[in-house]
């Protein structure tokens, strides 16, 4: 009966091996972006720069590019040349950030408006067709009325691309058959999008017609209670 004692230390091996399992490499003493920190009072590991800091590339010398204003007036020109790439980018960004409220055609009847947000004006009014480009840019940058500002979500160059796209949208929605190249037939019905919408977002699921009527009745009474 000598051998079992001899092998007793072997039994300890798995225990020792398990004791070696630590999470030090998994959880290193560094912060992932926006991680919680117990060191600072506001629990943020991401620190705000000191007031007045101007990081490289953030000195906004070109005031028109960042405000849409020349002096106190709105400018009516694009700060960079517009080509097909700019318009495509503008369309994509418009469909991501603006279409939830303004809708993809810009009539101000987007999904969020249908859910109770105050309806924005349609782009296809005389006032907004004549609005200077800098005005559109300024509304995105500083917000207007119920609309919050989008300066943090959309970089300035993309905001200008959206401005260009909105103008293109206004032109297209007010176009007549005279604007089309001769011989091209102008469709009289709105286009039907097949598959994915242009931004690549997932299209909202529409409820079947019969149940949609029922549920819309139910949701409107719910909203009535909400407003009390």
């Amino acid at each position: 009966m000598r051998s079992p004692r001899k092998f007793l230390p072997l039994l300890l091996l798995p225990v020792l091996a398990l004791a070696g399992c630590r999470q030090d490499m998994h959880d290193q003493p560094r912060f992932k972006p926006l991680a919680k920190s117990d060191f600072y009072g506001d629990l943020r590991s991401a620190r705000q720069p000191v007031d007045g800091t101007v990081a490289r590339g953030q000195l906004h010398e070109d005031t028109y590019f960042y405000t849409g204003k020349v002096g106190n007036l709105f400018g009516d020109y694009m700060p960079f040349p517009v080509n097909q790439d700019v318009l495509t980018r503008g369309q994509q960004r418009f469909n991501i950030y603006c279409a939830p409220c303004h809708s993809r055609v810009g009539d101000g009847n987007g999904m969020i408006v249908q859910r109770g947000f105050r309806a924005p004006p349609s782009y296809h009014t005389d006032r907004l067709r004549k609005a200077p480009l800098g005005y559109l840019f300024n509304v995105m940058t500083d917000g207007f009325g119920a609309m919050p500002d989008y300066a943090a979500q959309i970089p300035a160059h993309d905001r200008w691309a959206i401005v260009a796209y909105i103008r293109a949208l206004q032109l297209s929605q007010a176009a007549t058959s005279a604007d089309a190249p001769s011989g091209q037939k102008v469709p009289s019905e709105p286009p039907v999008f097949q598959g994915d919408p242009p931004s690549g977002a997932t299209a909202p699921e529409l409820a079947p017609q019969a149940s949609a009527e029922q549920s819309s009745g139910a949701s409107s009474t719910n909203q009535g209670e909400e407003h009390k």
Partner: protein
Amino acid sequence: MQIFHRSSNTISKATIFAVIIVASVALWACIQLQRSPYVTYAGVARPQPVPFSHQHHVAGLGIDCRYCHTSVENSHFAGIPPTKTCMNCHSQIWVGAPLLEPVRESYRTGKSLVWNRVNDLPDFVYFDHSIHISKGVGCNTCHGPVDRMPLMYNFASLQMEWCLDCHRAPDKYLRPRDQVFYMRYEQPTSAKPVEVDGTKYTDQRELGKYLIHKHNLRTPTDITSCSTCHR
């Protein structure tokens, strides 16, 4: 005199095999445990300060991923939206809802909402969202059907073998760039081909090979090298 009963012959023979069987079953159980949601948390919704529903915001309202996760295309980090992004809509919608009180409190006081990270890679992995987006890896390839997740959970195990599955053969998963944020994207079949640059693809491998060439993907040898993900 006989020391051992005659059944000892059978028992000793059986024991030799039993040890092997028991040991391999134990090993198999350990491996399965390591890959199970008990360890990886795959499919397990975490508690959050607000029960935010991706299903409602993505499938119900059609809001693009990038509306909130603004830095996903040009940063390694997709970005957790600041409370202000929530208030873009919720300043007027569901203004009295008790569930949203933590959001409004955060907006009033300027204190951050403390969300619990769901897709948490080990700290020795240096993952970058932007490169995956620009090479054509769809959001839901890794994050799963986010548009059908009332509460967020991680879809994949996030273990290395799962990463390598794609890094060894990216053509199994790549999709056209304009479909990356589309949650209902389906890989091409002969019934539903996917069209890229004027060519209709009916086979994922062919489409993948074309996209690898188009987007200049590095070779599997390069992207399975240790230092691709570990520094």
